[in-house]
């Protein structure tokens, strides 16, 4: 009862005023407060996890009990570089990721072109939703659906039966198809966005100057959407490189780098080796991103 409400309010407002004044005078403080939450998240959750992973890669485990022995050793990296199996698996994973990316680009381009340049605004909206719809369904449901497609007595073999042909069955081909299906929207959307930004007048000008459809595509459209394709490829490539579930379900006996990491962690109970193995996709992605950066695609994201 000693303070009247008015006095309290004025006290509060003067406090707020002081704070805002301080913030106004010290720009670095303002910036620091604004960025502290995202920076902390980035440092702790993202770089922190990567650092722990890298650090543990230099430890080893007791093979019998599975306990981690915190003692510096380069044994894991030595194994990584000398055992053929890891090289084979890494190359296989890169090839799968690259195939998925190429297939996605080839399928996505005409689709995106139609959406951006041909379809009416109404159809356009409908198509964008249609492209996004598969993302709402569960990953596992979609992959298991594909398992029954590729199965020996599944839909693919049933359709091919009259022609006397056989489907590929479970294996790398099935894996590539399923991954390409899963990640297609991530390729369509960037290309669609890129094509939408491409002014129609450029296409008309090209036509006025006597270029046919093919020439217009090669000399006008393609150079302008390459960055968009590269941007989409970052998604398809990195998602495929990291995937280890689809390949378990439709990949038959094939294993990709994710399976080997998973296996080292769960089967072998060897966190350090898994850490060392996990540096492989990180390294591949860094190289890939540096390559993509040169196309200017990163400005498109």
């Amino acid at each position, binding site marked *: 009862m000693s303070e009247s409400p008015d006095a309290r309010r004025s006290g509060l407002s003067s406090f707020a005023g002081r704070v805002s004044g301080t913030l106004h005078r010290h720009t670095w403080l303002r910036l620091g407060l604004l960025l502290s939450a995202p920076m902390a998240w980035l440092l702790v959750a993202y770089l922190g996890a990567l650092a722990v992973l890298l650090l543990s890669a230099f430890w080893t485990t*007791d*093979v*019998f*009990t*599975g*306990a981690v*022995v915190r003692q510096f050793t380069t044994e894991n990296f030595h*194994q990584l570089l000398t*055992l*053929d*199996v890891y090289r*084979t*698996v890494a190359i296989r994973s890169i090839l799968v990721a690259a195939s998925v990316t190429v297939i996605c680009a080839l399928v996505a381009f005409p689709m995106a072109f139609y959406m951006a340049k041909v379809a009416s605004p109404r159809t356009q909206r409908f198509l964008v939703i249609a492209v996004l719809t598969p993302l709402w369904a569960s990953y596992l449901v979609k992959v298991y659906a594909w398992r*029954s497609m590729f*199965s*020996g*007595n*599944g839909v693919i073999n049933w359709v091919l039966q009259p022609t006397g042909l056989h489907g590929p*069955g*479970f294996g790398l081909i099935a894996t590539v198809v399923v991954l390409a299906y899963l990640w297609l929207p991530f390729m369509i959307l960037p290309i669609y966005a890129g094509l939408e930004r491409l002014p129609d007048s450029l296409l008309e000008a090209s036509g006025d100057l006597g270029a046919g459809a093919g020439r217009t595509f090669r000399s006008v459209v393609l150079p302008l959407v390459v960055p968009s394709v590269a941007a989409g490829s970052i998604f398809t490539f990195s998602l495929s490189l990291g995937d280890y579930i689809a390949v378990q379900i439709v990949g*038959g*006996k094939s*294993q990709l780098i994710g399976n*080997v990491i998973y*296996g*080292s*962690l*769960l*089967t*072998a*109970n*060897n966190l350090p080796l898994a850490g060392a193995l996990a540096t492989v996709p990180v390294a591949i992605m860094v190289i890939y991103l540096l390559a993509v950066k040169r196309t200017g695609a990163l400005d498109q994201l």
Partner: protein
Amino acid sequence: MNSRRLLVLATAATLVLVACGSNSDNAKPGKTASAVQQGFTAPNLKPLDKLGTPEGQVNIVAWAGYVENGSTDKSVDWVTPFVKETGCKVNVKIGATSDEMVSLIKTGQYDVVSASGDASLRLIAGGDVEPVNTSLIPNYADVFDALKKKPWNSVKGVEYGVPHGRGANLLMYRTDKVKPAPDSWSSVFDANTPFKGHITAYDSPIYIADAALYLMKTQPALGIKNPYALDDKQFKAATDLLKTQNANIGEYWGDYLKEIQAFKSGDTVLGTAWQINVNLAQAEKAPVAAVLPKEGATGWSDTWMVATKSQHKTCAYKWLNHIISPKANAQVAEWFGEAPSNSKSCALTADKNHCKTFHADDEAYFDQVWYWTTPIKQCLDGRTNVTCKDYGQWTTAWQEIKG
């Protein structure tokens, strides 16, 4: 907590010493034969001295089919009576392989595990499970003596768990596709098999022992005496055989449901399996059968163990007592398709011949079954003039086999 960690570290250090200088260590007097044989020193942990009030729940890591509450099959339920009787809610996590079970227990979030021989000693050595006070488990008295105080469930006469049951890994096949019925593991190891692309194998390094067992019987010149004790030459022969087999494999299975599904769809027609996979596939009307091949088989003798870090030890002990009780043990043995550990269970199985079919007290039969065991540097068959491949090397080799 700290002293426990020290103990674990000390064990680890001892193991490293044992591993590095096995020769000098073996020569040292005062080390009992069994300790050298097992290759580790168990941390000095104390068992529970008396039961308290049940904590309300118990978290179990188990093999598929070991903890059934009626959700798989309405009539298959030995969890509900347990919950009613003790008030301990049962949460179960299925482990697909022994390795997965070891990693799960290491998280410290589980109370009880049904460990096979290739997990039990690793858990004991790591201090992840503690000795079990069998006087608190009344049903232990009825367990077959042949299963008590064995190298995979005890160290120097100290029991680390109660025996669950045992069985052999079988050869499952599609009766409509594989004719005549196979009677030998050669059908899965034959390089020129007519079933190329439709053979399956268990996705764990321990499967190397299946190849070693086959070589033990078919290539005596290699001198394999125990499929878990392989020197360089024997190990290479086994892994080479598996690399040849890899060309004919359609899928490896770790998840038992995946195997059942693959047999049902016909994508897999031949390969190693557990009896429960056969039973479940047959229940889904898949035309499959299984056989114990003439070479014998690898198998398991499982042990229920209590995690050191368990927060629900009274419930854990109650579960141990329940699962080896005559009735529950009969139910689980019949459901999974294995020999029960409780001698009184044989009178309670629905099929009166169950114990006979699964050779419950037939030691001569189980002499032909090589229970899963963790391979270590000291050869388990007693050879001292060579070093054997340890489990770490088995693991690396398994990844190389899969390619």
